């Protein structure tokens, strides 16, 4: 069960009837924003409209003094004026570390971290211990996630043991519930094998999520092969390491008709290749991480290991190109590449530290702050990159805010800013690139599968307007 200590939902957990008043709904499907009320009964959205009433005349209790939330035995009233509502976010690149590395993260801590970030569905990567290359492992993750009332779409390994030598039982893995195939964390170096995997995945209509890295270029590197690698005296990984494989896989996808998705794109060259491939009709999509949008390799000058990631943070030119590509619609999704690591793996000298940062709890905030608040991207377009678009890539139906759908949405306070602090994370790990950053777009309330999964205790939920 969800850890009540963390969400402090306490008295509210278990109540499935909610009336939300006066929220600005952001609809990524129709691409519009509109003010409305939302009435939820038994976890299902009953009505979306204005001036909804509960029909109940019971006395309500306030959640906390002066709070926007009132509740009775079986109903919650929430004054959401000034807030925004979005369908629950879908983070399509997450490392949940189960099975095997539960001290870094597990399903329980991972789901509560996700819910804090407004995320109600994740696609989790197979580089666990053992890797997700067998059907019973996929089934196990799916079933156990259900216990947490959360939506997990496991991505199965494309090669056995992620060794890049033999393909996995792709048909059987699809049957067991895999949403896609990937060797993420690693990259299949053998072109012929990649070709066969594309041909085989195509007959099952399964997407391939590709982490692109040419090992002969990347094997000793730790940072982007640019100005800063010279300054810092660290071996660099050139953009070519990614671009060569992107180019290779585009050619293979063109020949086979396979559906490919390039994940955590990091370089200008890569986005240019992807843009061209899309124009030529290749079935290709891609995502970027918030940290690649927000930071470039200049951050590394202090050897801060919370900036040590794979692919590395690249030059400002690369970063600008990625931001422009998001605005131009070349990038299809923003995904965190949430990669929890222990203190013992991160709080050590740079050259020894593991690659990766957590990101689910800052996914929306970082992207919103950079692209919308400080940039020119509309909130609707951003929400689309976190909901409709990634769902479409993985052929999944994620939440919508419409009648007869399961209640699956997040209430956001776009104006409120806060500084990211290490001690606030719900994730079991705290290796975040955003520590110390002031970010806007606070998650107020997350409802997942009809139940409240997260309430933000730090937001002063003052009642601002009117009566119920």
């Amino acid at each position, binding site marked *: 069960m969800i850890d009540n200590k963390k969400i402090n939902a306490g008295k509210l957990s278990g109540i499935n009837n909610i009336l939300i008043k006066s929220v600005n709904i952001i609809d990524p499907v129709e691409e519009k924003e509109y003010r409305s009320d939302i009435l939820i009964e038994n976890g299902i959205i009953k009505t979306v409209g204005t001036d909804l009433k509960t029909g109940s005349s019971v006395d309500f209790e306030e959640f906390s003094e002066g709070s926007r939330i009132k509740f009775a035995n079986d109903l919650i009233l929430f004054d959401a004026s000034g807030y925004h509502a979005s369908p629950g976010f879908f983070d399509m690149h997450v490392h949940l570390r189960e099975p095997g590395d539960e001290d870094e993260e597990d399903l329980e801590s991972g789901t509560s971290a996700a819910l804090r970030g407004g995320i109600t569905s994740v696609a989790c990567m197979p580089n666990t211990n053992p890797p997700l290359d067998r059907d019973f492992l996929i089934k196990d993750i799916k079933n156990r996630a259900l216990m947490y009332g959360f939506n997990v779409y496991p991505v199965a390994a494309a090669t*056995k043991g992620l060794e890049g030598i*033999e*393909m*996995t*039982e*792709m*048909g*059987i893995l699809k*049957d067991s519930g895999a949403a896609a195939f990937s060797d993420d964390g690693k990259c299949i170096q053998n072109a012929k094998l990649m070709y*066969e995997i594309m*041909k*085989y995945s*195509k*007959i099952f209509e399964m997407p391939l999520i590709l982490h692109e890295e040419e090992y002969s270029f990347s094997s000793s590197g730790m940072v982007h092969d640019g100005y800063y690698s010279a300054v810092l005296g660290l071996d660099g990984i050139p953009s070519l390491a990614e671009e060569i494989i992107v180019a290779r896989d585009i050619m293979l996808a063109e020949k086979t008709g396979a559906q490919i998705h390039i994940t955590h794109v990091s370089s200008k060259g890569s986005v240019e290749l992807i843009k061209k491939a899309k124009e030529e009709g290749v079935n290709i999509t891609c995502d970027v991480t918030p940290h690649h949008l927000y930071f470039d390799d200049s951050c590394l000058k202090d050897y801060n290991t919370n900036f040590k990631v794979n692919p590395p943070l690249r030059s400002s030119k690369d970063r600008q190109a990625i931001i422009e590509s998001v605005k131009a619609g070349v990038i299809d999704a923003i995904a965190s590449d949430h990669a929890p690591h222990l203190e013992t793996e991160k709080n050590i000298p740079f050259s020894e530290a593991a690659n990766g940062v957590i990101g689910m709890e800052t996914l929306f905030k970082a992207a919103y702050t950079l692209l919308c608040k400080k940039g020119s991207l509309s909130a609707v377009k951003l929400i689309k990159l976190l909901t409709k678009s990634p769902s479409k890539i993985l052929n999944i139906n994620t939440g919508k805010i419409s009648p007869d759908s399961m209640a699956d949405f997040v209430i956001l306070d776009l104006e409120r800013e806060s500084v990211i602090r290490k001690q606030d994370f719900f994730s079991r790990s705290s290796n975040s690139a955003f520590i110390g950053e002031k970010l806007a777009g606070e998650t107020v309330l997350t409802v997942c599968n009809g139940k409240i999964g997260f309430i933000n205790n730090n937001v002063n939920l003052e009642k601002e307007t009117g009566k119920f």
Partner: protein
Amino acid sequence: MLGVKNIIDIDDLSSEDIKLIMENADSFAEVLERDLKKVPTLRGKTLVNLFFEPSTRTRTSFEIAAKRLSADMINFSASTSSLKKGETIIDTVNTIQSMVVDLLIIRHSDSGVLNFISRNINTPVINAGDGKHQHPTQALLDLYTIKKSFKSFKDLKVALVGDIANSRVARSNARLFKRMGMNVSLVSAPMMLPEDMSYFGADIFYCIDDVIKEVDILYMLRMQFERQQRKYYPSIKEYNRFLSLNTDRFGMMKKGSIVMHPGPVNRGIEISETVMNLETEMPARIKINNQVNNGVAVRMALIYLILISRQENI
């Protein structure tokens, strides 16, 4: 008589040749039912089984066929010969030819060896399987088996299931069956299909369930998981899920349909143990042993026709 000197590629045989082979196979099948399963027809003739790739079934089948025709048969396996000492194929063949033989039956693991040998000697040759290229005698005995099971070939639906790319049986059979008017489908995985499929002229499916209810003939090919030290198909479990014949699938096949396999069957891989065990009770549905029996009659017909056709040309 037969319009060809050698039997290397199934497409070398004309429709008349095939008709002739089928008719003569009937006659030899009758001989094989007698108590004395022998006729003196090819007395004094010498045949050589030249097998560079090991095989018990095919080699024995040809040997029995030769002996039933009263011909003399000599078996030559690559491992027992001077090939190991570095003798080339041509030298081997010339040595044998200089001992005056009437017919060579050759199997080799490389495609094209038969063509090479036939260009370099005078003696007629029969292809007993060259690499991935052709296995015409298998196709003919399979055709004969089908002929005995159905009234006509026209529009019969046949599905070949398994590793098409690496199968000489698939090549010979697909071509022959199509030519005889049957409707050929291939069931396989992309890793086991050649890039360009136009030679086969067949519909392609990726799961045996897609064809199981409509086929008249389900032809299962032998599966080999490792080639050139590399596994190119994930696992037996995956094979069972999409490409194997099990009891459930057998139960879905239509009335009068048959199951065939060139043998030997990998039980539990291409065909489940349970279905294999049904053959003795259901010989009208599972034809694998029947194919083997027919193999001798068909090979007798081939050997007979090649040798008497040959004499006419002298």
